[in-house]
């Protein structure tokens, strides 16, 4: 079964390629209908990025990736964690408050703050996990609610934990973390004065851990098994409730990491301008990347490419930047359909193959019956 099959891999790659093509066509159509300059838009979107754009892409992709992995952990277990958004915001806030106190020196401060973020995110997601396990509350509902609660809670706490120095400014934020704990970034891209987030390394580490834990451990097997068939998992001795709880907490813990590159690399505090909405982007990217650690990385890069390249749209093509939302939305829509089409094609291929094999073995049995048996 695990044999290398070029046809299968080809099919897997066709789906996203077709989706992107469809998005390209539909967006062109929308632009055409609205009387916008179609060619200018694509010329702007596909112009070669400058060094600073590569930096921005890598940086955006880093946070997108973390967010998508958090969502994917839930997906693999058949849990729809829509709460990544609230989880990363509340976790970033907690980590910012902790790091801002500067109880620990330099690098140690960063490490412990990251642990604080993971714990907070895990705890927040754990509420939804607990409700699901003990009360049967759908995690979709509870995590959406928890997003709203996180917004309110952080607003309220931010007023209390406000940096006294920011009073009088319209930017309300927590105490800025000491310079020794700020990460300056890596000069990865030659020719750019901007730096790539140091915590890009964290994203790579998380991706690797995700691949290893889910693909190579007993725990990962149990988790995937539970996601695919709960009854089968129970039959093979998996404690489904405990798995649900663990998966939810893990998803939340990774969600807690989403804001860390931003906190230590850009903002250095949690305030009113801290980037919102990353949790929702993560859902889209996890879907597009099919929950695969490498697939998600490509999806995150595609998303950040679209985001960064669209910055020039208003100025160079005189078209609103929001056109990118259409592109992203259509890609997602098309990719979900394409994956389903490909899945059916795969099933059919499998059936044909099995039928052929059976037919070869038992010449007397008609192929059609063999396949359906």
């Amino acid at each position, binding site marked *: 079964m695990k044999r290398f099959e070029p046809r299968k891999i080809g099919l897997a790659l066709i789906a996203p390629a077709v989706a992107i093509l469809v998005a390209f066509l539909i967006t062109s159509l*929308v632009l055409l*209908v*609205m*009387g*916008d300059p179609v060619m200018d838009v694509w010329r702007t979107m596909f112009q070669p990025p400058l060094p*600073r*754009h590569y930096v*921005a892409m890598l*940086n*955006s992709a880093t946070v997108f990736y973390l967010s998508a992995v958090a969502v994917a952990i839930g997906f693999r277990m058949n849990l729809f964690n*829509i709460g990544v*958004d609230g989880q990363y915001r509340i976790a970033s806030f907690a980590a910012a408050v902790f790091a801002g106190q500067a109880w620990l020196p330099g690098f140690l401060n960063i490490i412990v703050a990251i642990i604080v973020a993971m714990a907070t995110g895990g705890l927040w997601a754990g509420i939804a996990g607990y409700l699901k396990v003990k009360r049967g509350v759908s995690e979709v509902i509870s995590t959406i609610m928890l*997003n*709203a609660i996180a*917004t*309110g809670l*952080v*607003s*309220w706490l*931010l*007023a209390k934990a406000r940096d006294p120095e920011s009073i*009088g*400014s*319209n*930017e*309300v934020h927590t105490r800025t973390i000491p310079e020794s704990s700020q990460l300056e970034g890596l000069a990865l891209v030659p020719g750019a*004065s*901007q730096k790539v987030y140091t915590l890009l390394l964290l994203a790579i580490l998380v991706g690797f851990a995700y691949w290893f834990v889910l693909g190579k451990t007993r725990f990962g097997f149990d988790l995937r098994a539970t996601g695919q068939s709960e009854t089968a998992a129970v039959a093979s001795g998996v404690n489904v409730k405990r798995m649900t709880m663990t998966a939810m907490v893990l998803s939340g813990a990774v969600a807690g990491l989403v804001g860390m590159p*931003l906190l230590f690399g*850009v*903002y250095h505090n949690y*305030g*009113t*301008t*801290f*980037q*919102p*909405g990353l949790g*929702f*982007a993560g*859902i*889209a990217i996890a879907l597009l990347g099919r929950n695969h650690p490498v697939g998600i990385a490509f999806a995150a890069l595609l998303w950040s490419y679209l*985001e*960064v390249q669209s*910055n*020039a749209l*208003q*100025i*160079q093509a*005189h078209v*609103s*930047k*929001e056109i990118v*939302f*259409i592109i*992203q*939305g*259509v890609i*997602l*829509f098309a990719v979900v359909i394409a994956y389903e089409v490909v899945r059916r094609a795969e099933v059919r291929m499998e059936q044909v193959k099995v039928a052929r094999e059976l037919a070869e073995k038992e010449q007397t049995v008609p192929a059609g019956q063999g396949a359906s048996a």
Partner: protein
Amino acid sequence: MRQTRKFAAVVAAAALALTACGSDSSEEPTDTGTADGTATSSDTAEPMSDVKVGMAYDVGGRGDQSFNDAAAAGLDQAVAEFGIETTEATAVDGEPESAREERLQQLIDAGYTTVIAVGFAYAPSVAKVAAENPDVHFALIDSTDAEGDNIANLTFAEHEGSFLVGAAAALKSQSGNIGFVGGVQVPLIEKFQAGYEAGAKEVNPDITIQSTYLTQPPDFSGFGDPAKGKTAAEGMFQAGADIIYHAAGGSGGGVFTAAAEAGKQAIGVDSDQALTAAPEVQDVIITSMLKKLDVAVFEFIKAEVEGNFEAGAQEFNLAAGGVDYSTTGGKIDDITDQLDELKQKIIDGEIEVPTSPAG
């Protein structure tokens, strides 16, 4: 145009729903005014100046009938007067900090060496980009958080204008009970509250003032949620208020609706809302606190055209005509003498208006 915009809204909403399952942000497609803007610049007066102005709006952009539109009006006036070349770009809700920097840098790369950043959210990005482009002149509206030799910080004395409408509310109130609805509790909006309360107390020391804010930062929905504004205003009217002043951007529409339903009155903000608000509620607006962003933007561009760029904080106060009150509708014609007297006292420095609320 309207149809296309509606279509864009539907498509964008669909796309959003797909990508985000609906985030709480208010992503409105900005219109294609950009193209229109540049078109006008070439149609009207022939270029008299080689100043090229790049405008970076905050979320909402041109067409928001409020803050950004007021700034756009100043730009349009400058285009008509000086025939300058302009281009515009608008922020998107939920974008990363790097996108704001990129927007400013894009404007500069496209040759727009006078950049106007509309709104305090641009402060960090202006600080960064201005340092990297010392030859470019920046105007940062509503914020003094970013400073530099090439940054002009254009701020307003909202407290002084609010003082006058506060006095108007106290003079017009029959119940001796008035209200203030702020959008989001940030220092900028507290300036409105402080001035309003001081103005009301100036003419009637015994007046009751109910003040509230719709949301706390970082929740900025208080600037764009009419339902919240309506609920808050209804509560105040039921508690005896008969005039409410709002400094809540788009939420103000709800305050006007509540006033219309309760048969009470309201005071507008930023622009002359007796003209710009929905027609059915215009009648309840007795006056508006005018924050003349258009004046600030126009004056800044004028200085640029004349080669008189001036860095640092410039406050557009009552004396400079940066803030004022409106008289559209004739509802406060009987008290304008008293208000103008107070205005003169503020200009002369006889009255000093506080910038943060007492207590």
